[in-house]
């Protein structure tokens, strides 16, 4: 650990400057916008926007959906990628091709996949054939609230590879000796994983969870192309709300919604972050 080194600034400054200009300044500037009334004169109206937005049921719908979708998707990715990384590790060298395949979806631009997705989930498509075979009958995947399923699946499909890589890297860092020791003590496979692996890779786990959450929001683009600007109520997310408001020149609503959301996220992660084990460094 270096302390009191002047060369710190050499490393810190460019990135810091960029962050300030392109992220922090707009972020703070946006707060100002959220306090104005949206007309070109930018009159300050204080918290009136926040009040109005929170009373708007469509905003709340968007918020609810955003949170729900990401809270479904993130743990799903977390669990699946953990399991898959464990499986991969047990295969050793043979796991290479699998890992390549699993990473491919991330590199493939999703907008290119949309058509195939709409084909698969079409009312007369393959997934429905499967569904009928399993006895569940046809489902309106793309038109009803079941749209959540293709959306979540698309998300998981895309991001599983990435999380697996991270987990794999972490899993490797667990020294062999620990497992040897545990086996000698008579612990079974499951006990080994939960009692040894998980706690040791907690920082990484945190990382994966965070990344899963972050990427859950980037799914907006794809939902927009399948469902349009006003899709089924089950997938109308906060970003739809913000996007539509932007189109209607209601910049104050966009920023108000954005900051309400930012506050929620901050609080949630502030809590997580405060728990020391997660940060990973003194």
């Amino acid at each position, binding site marked *: 650990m270096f302390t009191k080194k002047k060369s710190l600034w050499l490393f810190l400054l460019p990135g810091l400057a960029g962050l300030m200009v392109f992220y922090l300044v707009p972020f703070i500037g946006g707060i100002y916008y959220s306090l104005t009334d*949206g*007309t*070109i*004169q930018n009159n300050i109206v204080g918290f009136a926007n926040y009040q109005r937005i929170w009373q*708007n*049921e*469509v905003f709340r719908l968007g918020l609810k959906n955003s949170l729900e979708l990401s809270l479904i998707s993130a743990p799903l990715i977390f669990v699946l990628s953990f399991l898959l990384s464990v499986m991969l590790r047990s295969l050793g060298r043979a796991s290479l091709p699998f890992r390549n395949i699993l990473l491919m979806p991330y590199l493939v631009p999703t907008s290119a996949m949309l058509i195939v997705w709409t084909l698969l989930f079409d009312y007369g498509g393959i997934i429905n054939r499967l569904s009928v075979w399993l006895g569940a009958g046809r489902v309106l995947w793309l*038109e009803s609230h079941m749209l959540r399923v293709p959306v979540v699946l698309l998300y998981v499909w895309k991001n599983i590879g990435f999380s697996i890589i991270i987990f794999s890297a972490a899993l490797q860092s667990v020294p062999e000796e620990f497992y040897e020791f545990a086996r000698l003590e008579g612990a079974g496979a499951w006990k080994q994983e939960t009692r040894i692996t998980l706690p040791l890779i907690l920082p990484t786990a945190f990382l994966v969870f965070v990344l899963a959450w972050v990427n859950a929001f980037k799914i907006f683009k794809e939902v927009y192309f399948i469902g*349009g*600007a*006003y899709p*089924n*109520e089950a997938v*109308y997310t906060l970003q739809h*709300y913000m996007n*539509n*408001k*932007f*189109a*209607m*020149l209601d910049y104050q609503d966009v920023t108000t919604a954005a900051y309400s959301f930012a506050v929620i996220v901050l609080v949630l992660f502030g809590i997580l972050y405060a728990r020391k084990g997660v940060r990973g460094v003194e």
Partner: protein
Amino acid sequence: MRNKYLLRGIVFLFLLTLLPFAAMAEASASPNEDIKVLSESQTGYSSIRSAAVLGDTVYVLNPEGIYSWLSGQAAFTLAASHNQLEQLSLPEEERKPTISILLSDGQQLWGMDGSNARLFTLDISGGELVFGEPVSLQMQDRTQTYETDAGVEHSYMDMPEQALLMNGQLYCLFNNYQNNTQNRTLMSYDIATGEAASYDSEFITGIAAYKDGKLLVSVRDEDNSYDPATSAFVPTALGVFDPQSDTIEEIGTFADLNAGNMGMGMTIKYEKDKDAVLYLIGNGVVRRLPDGTEEKCAYLPTREFWGGTGDKMPLLPDGRVALCVGDTMHVRSTNPADLPATSLVIYGGEENNAHKAALQNMPDVSVTALQNKWFSSAQELGQALVSGEDGIDILFIETGWMDVANLLVKGYAADLSASPVFQEHMDKLYPQMKEVGMQDGKILALPVRLNIESMSLNSKAFAKLGMPLPATYGEVCQSVKTFYEEHAQEGEYNINMQTGSGWLKDLLLSTYTDYMAYKGEEMTLDTPLFRQMAEALASVNTQLMDDDEVDFSNNEDMNEFFQRPTLFTQGYSFDLQSYEYFLNRPDGNDMSAPDMFFGMKADQDAPPVVKGSAVVMIINSQSKNMDAALRYAENYIKGLDALSKVTFYPGENEPIINPDHERVVANFSQQLAAMKVALEKAEGAEKTEMEATIKQMEENFAQYNEYGKFLASTAAIAAYRQLMENSYIATYKTNMLMSQQDLSELRERYFGGQLSLDQFIQESDAKLRLIRLENQ
């Protein structure tokens, strides 16, 4: 001593008082003037056809003769009369040569007879035209021929787009539209022998006399002027053309100020003393200096430079240019210091009478239209206004397609309540129009145009088929069904101007939307009324309609289509001027034209609703030229023509006489007379064809004489008022069912049979609900 100083004091004071007069004298000699040609006779229009400069004088040619103007004069004087129309009624031997183009070689005037390919000198020193010995030009390869339906072949001589005299040669630049190309051909003819010379140099779009026997040319391949890869136009090049070697030496390019200037050719001029090139763009003249930099140097209040051949931009010895449009010659200084100090940028709008009236009262302000920018949504427009990058001062927007109300609420429009002119205008409007422009009791937008859409049909055709006239949507569906059941096989009538079934489907939505909007109710499809209407549509076999679709790009099919009377005439919107004509046209004429206009009823109990779309004028609240913008707007409102006023002031009910009526009638008579003279000499097939043409002309003439008298007759106005009684102005919100993207897709799927009615209603309503709640 006191006397000496007193004397000096008096002289000084005297000189002082002279100063203002001197200043005024300076000011009064404004470098920019507009001179109109006044027409003596009643028959022709006084449009200037061609212009040329000889010494200090500008000579212009119009159908009545040659007029001259010397700097300092207030008006043109008739230099020599030469009424070309009158000539036509004389026997051929007595006719004097026709002058199509007036030219000058710096020493004397020349005239070119386009139709007979002759060139001759003109002498007007004696107040009468004296023609020199005509030289026949070898223009055979510019002869164009065409065949009429009767099988008669006609030929005519191609007229050059630009022409100039230099070094004993007449250089002509011809366009080749009949060969489907935008590129031009350069030819030259020896003025002594008429011998032609053609050149291989290609892509020349404009010519000007240069020096050393060479021409300045503008060059661009107009057929490939747009580069889709860069989404921009290829810049036009400037070159020097040497006729001896038939080569072009490129010396630079023009800035793309006119963004394309497609197909219109470049009007260029060489300025010797500055070694610069002047060229015409949109509504101004730009000077390109030898180093390649360009400066705007003259402003013109109009972009309409269509007509005129020969020298399109005569250059006076004092450095000014004289540009002719219609019957006016605009003389402008090319000194950038003389450009108007203030400028206004307008988005949308058109050069109509109100606009011209506004410009006339504001010669000190240059008004330009925003080029090549098209805002497809309020979002784009709002961003442009906020960023101020286009410097838009005034906007004309259609209320149906852009969310004007939103723009007003957001404060993008300036408050116009203070002006009494605007107050008066708003108070005189139909209440529903006034509403569109008001926000919180303030005037923020001025409605300046109103078009209405109503249902129209050919009632005589209905009567002939024994079908009742429909009034509701259900009845329209019934008419379609009856038609296909009983009359379609005969193939003698068309059901609608718009073939296929699209119109009927659109009518369902538009009638319903109109009804809901008129009632002021929130849009929802889940009503018994909508279901009833949708079921009426479902009961019609639309496949039959689609099978009858006509491809209008095929001339034969199109002609066949128009031989038959049409029942529903939806291609026509209500037009005051043609109302009487439609009502009274003879049987067999214009069988696809309506004679009955009315609003559609959604069902028996509903009112007949007519939809109006309005265009409003808004002044950007961030405009840097607020005063000039306000002046423009006020002049615009004051300059609204009578026809517009009738359409949106319910209080204006005086019939409007067509000011051109008398003149056109006189013109018509003269033309008929000339044709009759020609008829006597014709023979055979040509004679029959001419007879048919004359008969048609006489019929048209009679019609025009009777019904062309009014731009808006009493009956027309009354019918219009009737329609307006149940009307509403379409806004972005009311048009949403048709224009919003998600909803349009649903509609497509429903009409494509992929959704059931219930699903369609359910999903549309879900989206409508989302949209509505989002905006609370």
